[in-house]
């Protein structure tokens, strides 16, 4: 990894198909987005692979858009949104615009350090998986600064998802997921949920289609300034669980 690699990526458009696209949804992230972009850009350019970065704004009302524009990175695409449509809608827009052979969805707060990326890439590139999910619920995971309430709720929701939905992935909500382009475009084109539970729907669909999914332990740091209102999101999550099952029964996913 050299500074020259980073400087070249910043100023020279990649001419070939990207090996990797990284999609970051952003809603009022003026405090957190720039350090995250810096950490990602520095690390990923060091891997020596053609890659692009997509920031999918979600109707931010702060300086997020202006700050990202001011970076003048030629391989960074900023997707604007007039209105706040939910994290799921921002990720979908970003993923469907992504051209990379592999597509990573990553959170704006850098909760999972980008240095964990090779673990997921290995699963797709060398072991034939279609989807690799960063997980805080399997052996080898390191979680920092997560409070007791969030730990308890996470555990309870994981139990419901596992036993009532029969989704094998134990941590559906970690914002660090890697897909093949074919899988990503097919799954996100079929997505109907725009809020917090879109991850669950994507994994439900992936399981339903028969994609091979790896759950990979990653380091996760609970970044301060989280916009998640825990009790409200738990209610939405439970409601969306019912909605996903109902969608499936009605044949909404039949074309996926």
């Amino acid at each position: 990894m050299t500074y020259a690699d980073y400087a070249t990526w910043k100023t020279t458009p990649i001419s070939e198909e990207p090996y990797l696209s990284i999609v970051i949804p952003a809603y009022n992230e003026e405090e957190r987005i720039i350090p995250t972009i810096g950490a990602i850009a520095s690390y990923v350019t060091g891997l020596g692979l053609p890659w692009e970065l997509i920031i999918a704004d979600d109707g931010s009302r702060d300086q997020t858009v202006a700050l990202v524009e001011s970076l003048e990175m030629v391989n960074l695409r900023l997707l604007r949104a007039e209105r706040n449509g939910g994290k799921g809608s921002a990720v979908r827009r970003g993923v469907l615009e992504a051209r990379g052979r592999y597509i990573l969805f990553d959170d704006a707060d850098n909760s999972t350090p980008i240095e964990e990326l090779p673990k997921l890439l290995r699963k797709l590139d060398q072991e034939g998986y279609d989807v690799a999910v960063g997980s805080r619920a399997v052996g080898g995971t390191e979680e920092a600064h997560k409070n007791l309430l969030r730990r308890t709720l996470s555990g309870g929701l994981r139990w419901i998802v596992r036993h009532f939905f029969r989704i094998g992935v134990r941590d559906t909500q970690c914002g660090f997921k890697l897909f093949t382009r074919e899988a990503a475009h097919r799954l996100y084109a079929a997505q109907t949920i725009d809020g917090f539970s879109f991850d669950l729907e994507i994994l439900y669909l992936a399981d339903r289609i028969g994609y091979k999914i790896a759950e990979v332990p990653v380091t996760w740091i609970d970044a301060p300034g989280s916009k998640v209102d825990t009790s409200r999101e738990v209610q939405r999550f439970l409601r969306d669980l019912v909605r996903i099952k109902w969608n499936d029964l009605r044949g909404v996913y039949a074309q996926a």
Partner: protein
Amino acid sequence: MALTTRTVGNVTVLELTGRFDAHMAPALLEWYGKLRTAQVVVNLAGVNFIDSSALAALTGGMKRCRQQKGDLKLCALQQPVQVIFELTRMNRAFEIFPSETEAIASFTH
């Protein structure tokens, strides 16, 4: 994240390691409160990520030192941290040196 302090001549050297974020920023503010000198070098060789709260905490320390006719200087930035300083334009606010030795020596020149 770990925080280690030592003194070299009239300069206090603060060595940080790990992820320097909002969880660590309060410890740095507390450390400033105990500081007896206005000549400080913060060695960031062991820091692999820095967020806006941590940048604000460093800026606060730098202003405090400058008000007392000293300075807070930085050294040994890893590449990701260097890039974050550039993108946030904080590299213009601080004196940054490649090594701790050069940062300490700059106080006597």
